[in-house]
């Protein structure tokens, strides 16, 4: 399976390929394996899986199309790419749904076997696009994937109906050949995954090899392509998704704090994978409870926190809404807790499988009363690891619930991640009360749970079981110091102020922000969350055209980093791209009186670099 000398591969510096098919066609798997092979080969990459909301929408319909986009390159990249160069479409619906995004003159590889009248009608085509000239602007390759697969797997002895299931491996084999990806890792993976079922294993290997051989022998393609490895810092790498990195970050935090992890969670897209992942790692002392509802999830986590565990709850927007009363309780109890919100399209059920970042103001203000809490957000899939540790650090050090914002795009998207040296991770120090901290009027030593650290304003924390420190805490307003119930108006004012001061004090533990790009920029692009990659690419492009632009990306959204106001003041123009109608820009305007301009996209898909490049150009030259 090597290329012949006369068909030398053509070099590409980058490639964006989109696999699309019916949700039963296994396109996520095909994309995932192509990605893995590319990662092992040494490319930089970023992925964007997109699933339909229904588990199995009617086969062959637009609603059932599942897609996976991967961007691979020989240099550093930040996004899954704007317009794909190649579309692999397993049926007419996939072609119809995904063609719009393809670059002009791009390549389309279709499974021609599926282009019969029935499937064309289901996809809403009146004429066959393969013959009516509507694809003239593209290079179209018609490959009879279904029939070739069926033929190829005959030696494995599978029934013709089951043979159809291997066609995604045929597609994978074909693109593996086209883009000269290594094949060993894929074969090893098939072995690992299907080895227990020899018939399926053999069928998938045969289909994969048939796809590869088809590329090589069919006269359809005149040559292959290659994308060289990208220069990367020395180290050990793995390809990681946001939800996986977040789960591992929580486990790391548990090790760094030397406290067990307790997850109370209720299944919800796109957060469930964190529950799945953490529940695998009981040998780390991780306890996971699939609770009866969202409220019980956070409640159990808070109960565990009272007992000295790191209480975590994971959810998405609708779950955050349900958890808000318990967050208020955690604020009042001043116990550590981490609420992970993997944002998705809202309101209500909204777009469960699509990304959005419109929960920032919910995180800020979505509780009754004066109830501030720290908020942090991840910017890339691998950043979720560090952000998870940071959320736990803040929660434990300040005895406060913390909201961690990620989104559907980060959750499922992947990128190569240089593994950190675990010994270099900073331990999280937590001190528990072990002795009385007050003297009663009668001169006896006693324990007061609301005696505070003068620096952090964190209250004293005594765990049940500790000798002599019995105490009661609750959601009713309490006397500062003793923690006894207090309805005194002045004390309430004092408690409201001290809870706010405590959250504000977190800023002292945050490093100052650093701006990238031009020092004397005319425009600062300020972002948060998963827009980082698209912003970075757009800023690079603008600068390549001679514009002076800088980028600042926030991890800490409440409180803001201490020098943020000063930094924002340096720029004449501030542009804030957000996957919402302008939430951070409102906060920035309110806090710093800066004329922050909002760029919005709320369509269930991330910004493309091209969109943001246009916005930057527009803002600079209007």
């Amino acid at each position, binding site marked *: 399976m090597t290329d012949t000398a006369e068909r030398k591969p053509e070099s590409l510096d980058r490639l964006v390929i989109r696999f699309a098919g019916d949700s039963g066609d296994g396109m996520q798997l095909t994309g995932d394996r192509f990605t*893995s092979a590319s990662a092992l080969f040494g490319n930089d990459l970023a992925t964007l899986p997109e699933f339909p909301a229904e588990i199995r929408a009617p086969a062959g319909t637009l609603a059932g199309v599942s897609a996976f986009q991967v961007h691979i390159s020989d240099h550093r990249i930040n996004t899954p790419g704007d317009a794909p160069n190649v579309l692999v479409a397993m049926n007419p619906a996939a072609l119809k749904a995904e063609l719009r995004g393809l670059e002009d003159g791009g390549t389309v590889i279709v499974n021609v076997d599926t282009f019969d009248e029935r499937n064309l009608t289901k996809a809403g085509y009146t004429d066959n696009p393969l013959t009516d000239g509507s694809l003239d602007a593209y290079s179209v390759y018609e490959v009879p994937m279904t029939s070739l697969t069926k033929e190829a797997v005959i030696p494995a002895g599978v029934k013709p109906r089951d043979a159809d299931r291997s066609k995604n491996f045929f597609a994978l084999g074909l693109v593996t050949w086209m883009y000269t990806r290594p094949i060993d890792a894929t074969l090893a993976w098939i072995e690992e995954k299907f080895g227990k079922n020899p018939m399926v294993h053999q069928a998938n290997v045969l289909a994969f090899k048939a796809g590869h051989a088809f590329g090589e022998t069919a006269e359809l393609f005149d040559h292959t392509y290659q994308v060289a490895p990208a220069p990367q810092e020395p180290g050990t*790498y793995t*390809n990681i998704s946001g939800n996986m990195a977040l789960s591992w970050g929580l486990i790391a935090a548990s090790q760094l704090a030397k406290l067990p992890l307790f997850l109370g969670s209720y299944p919800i897209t796109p957060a469930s994978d964190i529950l799945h992942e953490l529940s695998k790692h009981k*040998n780390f002392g991780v306890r996971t409870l699939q609770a*009866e509802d969202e409220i019980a999830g956070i*409640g159990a986590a808070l109960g*565990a926190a*009272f007992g000295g565990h790191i209480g975590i709850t994971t959810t998405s927007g609708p779950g955050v809404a349900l958890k808000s009363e318990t967050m208020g309780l955690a604020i009042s109890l001043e116990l550590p807790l981490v609420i992970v919100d993997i944002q998705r399209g809202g309101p209500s059920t909204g777009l469960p499988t699509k990304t959005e970042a419109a929960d920032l103001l919910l995180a800020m203000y979505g509780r009754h009363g004066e109830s501030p809490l720290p908020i942090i957000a991840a910017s890339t899939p691998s950043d979720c690891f560090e952000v998870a540790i940071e959320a736990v650090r803040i929660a434990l050090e300040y005895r406060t619930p913390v909201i961690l914002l990620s989104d559907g795009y980060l959750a499922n998207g992947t990128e190569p991640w240089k593994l950190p040296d675990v010994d270099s991770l900073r331990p999280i120090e937590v001190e528990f009360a072990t002795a009385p901290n007050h003297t009663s009027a009668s001169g006896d030593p006693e324990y007061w749970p609301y005696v505070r650290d003068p620096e952090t304003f964190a209250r004293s924390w005594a765990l049940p*079981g500790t000798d002599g420190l019995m105490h009661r805490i*609750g959601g009713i307003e309490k006397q500062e110091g003793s923690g006894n119930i207090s309805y005194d108006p002045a004390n309430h004012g004092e408690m409201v102020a001290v809870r706010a001061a405590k959250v504000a004090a977190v800023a002292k533990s945050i490093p100052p922000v650093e701006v990238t790009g031009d020092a004397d920029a005319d425009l600062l692009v300020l972002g948060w969350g998963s827009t980082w990659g698209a912003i970075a690419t757009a800023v690079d492009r603008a600068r390549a055209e001679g514009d002076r632009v800088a980028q600042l990306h926030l991890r800490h959204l409440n409180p803001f980093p201490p020098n943020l106001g000063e930094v924002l003041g340096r720029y004449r123009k501030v542009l804030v791209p957000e996957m919402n109608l302008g939430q951070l820009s409102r906060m920035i305007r309110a806090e710093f009186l800066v004329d922050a301009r909002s760029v919005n996209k709320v369509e269930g898909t991330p910004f493309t670099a091209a969109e943001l490049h246009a916005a930057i150009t527009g803002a600079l030259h209007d």
Partner: protein
Amino acid sequence: MTDVAPTTRKDWQTDQEVRWCPGCGDYSILTAVQMLMPELDVRREDTVFVSGIGCAARFPYYMNTYGMHTIHGRAPAIATGLALARPDLDVWVVGGDGDLLSIGGNHLIHALRRNVNLTILLFNNQIYGLTKGQYSPTSERGKVTKSTPFGSLDQPFNPIALALGAQATFVARTHDMDRQHMQETFRRAHAHKGAAVVEIYQNCNVFNDGAFATITGKANRESMLIPLEHGQPVRFGPEGSKGVVIDDSGQARIVEVDDVDESEIVTHDEQAPTAALAFMLSQLASSPEEPTPVGVFRAVERDEYGEAVERQIAGAQDQRGPGDLSALLRSGATWDVV
């Protein structure tokens, strides 16, 4: 816990002023618990009372233990997390009928079916007290309250039947007029491994005074309370003149013992393989105006949830060793760049 330093009732009291209405049944329940604790061979340090919202939910403030006064309905969920995180602790849940059966009904049934090691005291006064007198999920049909001036239309819950339906492993009923009975019932509930729920008929003398007087008044008890004792025929009334039989259609019915063959009187079995008998007994009275069973309806052993959680963790550690973070990060496909 054998070498626990002895305590007295006073050791379990706090300096906080008890703020229930004078004459409220909550006082006698508090006294029963505070008097029982020194007999239980447990440390105050290892004891936690968790409550939701309502009159009863003030309970933790009056117990010199660790305590959490949380939010309406959520105490069973919060206590579940605490009990799973800290199996070494003795976790009690205190709540009223509104707290545990209305807003928190979901958490209660799930704590029961999971069999989390919790001792749950359900103060049933058949009214909302703290919000000043609305009907509750245990109020009788037709109840006239501030929110039901024409009488309530809702069918009330029977907490015992509900708990049995939720597959609770320990279900009992007692009442606030009999401290001895409360203490014995709480003692059994506390000793039970798993979730134990005790319904306590509790008089709210301000908004629902006398709701249980027909059965709990001193003069009425003998003829109106049916004591359940494991292995004993279910009899009550003066000199045990009345008894309970199960008729052919599977219904429990009260009879004069003299009218039947004594062998027909049902023998109470709290450990029966199914909850059928306990359920039939729970249906004897449709309201606390009729002869009502008190005592332990059901007490069976089933895997305690927290122990099962610990077993899985220990099993995973035996199999895979304690977690190794560096190895975890390398558990997927990796590649080296030099």
